[in-house]
């Protein structure tokens, strides 16, 4: 499976999840997603589920406080101006968080499918315009630069007595100075690279050559099985409950 195919499949699954199909449609969607996880991602699927839980559980707790604790009724009851119940609010929060869990899990599954590739290899394999690939590579390379910038700025502000190592009110008051210092540090590093380092090393031309040499096809290999399968399943998911309802 190519990264193009995996990202397209992930997009289809998420779009179907947000289309709010009925119970039959959801069952088909779940089967399709589980098949992708079992066949393409295998054991790493558990990591995807764990990461999705880490993202969604705090959100579920927050939404529970808001909807069940404060509002005490579901949005449907509010819209219908009927008497609200906390049970309905809880059911609403559970449904919404279930859908969000599904979305996050699908995104994680797609990335974990290529866990053995480096980010640069994934970007090379994507069928995207050269400028988009370049900005993706630069964004990834900036993550390391920003980490250095944060470390430097943080340590400098601690040494100057502006921030403290442990959590404190002073850190909250002066957090803006940290952001400014990080921004300036990152800009200074990047100006140095663009002005001195990259021209000498001919970095940009080499990067373009690296990205252009891949010449990837849009879809190939298992994409030709997964994408028609997912499109066929999409039709079934969208009409399954309507046909059932009509009968």
């Amino acid at each position: 499976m190519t990264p193009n195919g995996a990202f397209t499949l992930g997009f289809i699954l998420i779009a179907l999840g947000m289309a709010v199909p009925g119970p039959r449609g959801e069952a088909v969607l779940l089967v399709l997603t589980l098949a992708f996880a079992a066949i393409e991602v295998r054991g790493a699927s558990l990591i995807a589920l764990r990461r999705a839980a880490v993202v969604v559980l705090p959100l579920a707790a927050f939404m529970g406080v808001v909807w069940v604790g404060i509002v005490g009724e579901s949005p449907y009851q509010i819209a219908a101006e009927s008497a609200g119940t906390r049970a309905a609010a809880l059911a609403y929060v559970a449904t919404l968080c279930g859908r969000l869990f599904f979305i996050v899990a699908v995104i994680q599954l797609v990335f974990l499918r290529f866990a053995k590739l480096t980010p640069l290899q994934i970007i090379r394999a994507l069928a995207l315009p050269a400028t988009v690939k370049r900005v993706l590579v630069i964004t990834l390379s900036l993550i390391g630069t920003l980490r250095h910038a944060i470390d430097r700025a943080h340590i400098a502000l601690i040494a100057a007595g502006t921030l403290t190592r442990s959590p404190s009110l002073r850190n909250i008051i002066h957090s803006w100075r940290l952001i400014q210092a990080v921004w300036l540090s990152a800009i200074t590093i990047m100006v140095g690279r663009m002005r001195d380092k990259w021209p000498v090393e001919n970095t940009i031309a080499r990067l373009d050559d690296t990205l252009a040499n891949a010449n990837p096809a849009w879809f190939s290999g298992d994409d030709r099985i997964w994408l028609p399968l997912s499109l066929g399943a999409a039709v079934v998911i969208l009409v399954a409950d309507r046909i059932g309802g009509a009968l």
Partner: protein
Amino acid sequence: MFTTPRLILIALGAALNCAIGTVVYLLKLPVFLDSIGTILVALLLAPDRLAAFLCSWAAGWIGLALSGLVNPFLPWFAITDVAISLIAALLCVAAAKTFRDRPLNSPPFIGQVALCGIVIGVVSAVISVPVVVYLFGGVTGSGSALVVAVFLKAGQHLMSAAMLSGLASDPPDKILQVLFAALLYRATPAEFIAMLRAREPEPTR
């Protein structure tokens, strides 16, 4: 259009959106602060409005994609980011000279920050409300959900509660964002801004 310094600016803007926006989201503050990078990118590319719009849009969407890994609500507000980029390119870019004046001329600075913030805030509230109501039933994972809840409890309808919450929290949030972007713009070295405005030489092969 997309020279190397501008691509680096897009990446920096996306990183700024992602870093500050994610911290605010996790703290559940009733603000967002997730478009500072978008506005800053537009300011740094003044007076070229087309470049400002396209680059800030790109920064906004890359930021959304990155932040979406932590906040699954965020990618659904992609259209709001386009609107923010457009207004930043049209309105904030016009104020870029005032924002960078030395010494700082306070009355026009404050006035421009407030004007840009209020316009961006009102437009993003109006564009975000249908997403908040129809996709998520009125409550998202951000701290502003508490404001929606308070309005609902006060007897407002879902749509009006989401709209009132947006109009109550978005303009102050966007004023803060424009202020932070303007301050970072003032602090950015002139050398970097000159690089952004220069044409890129052909790379040697």
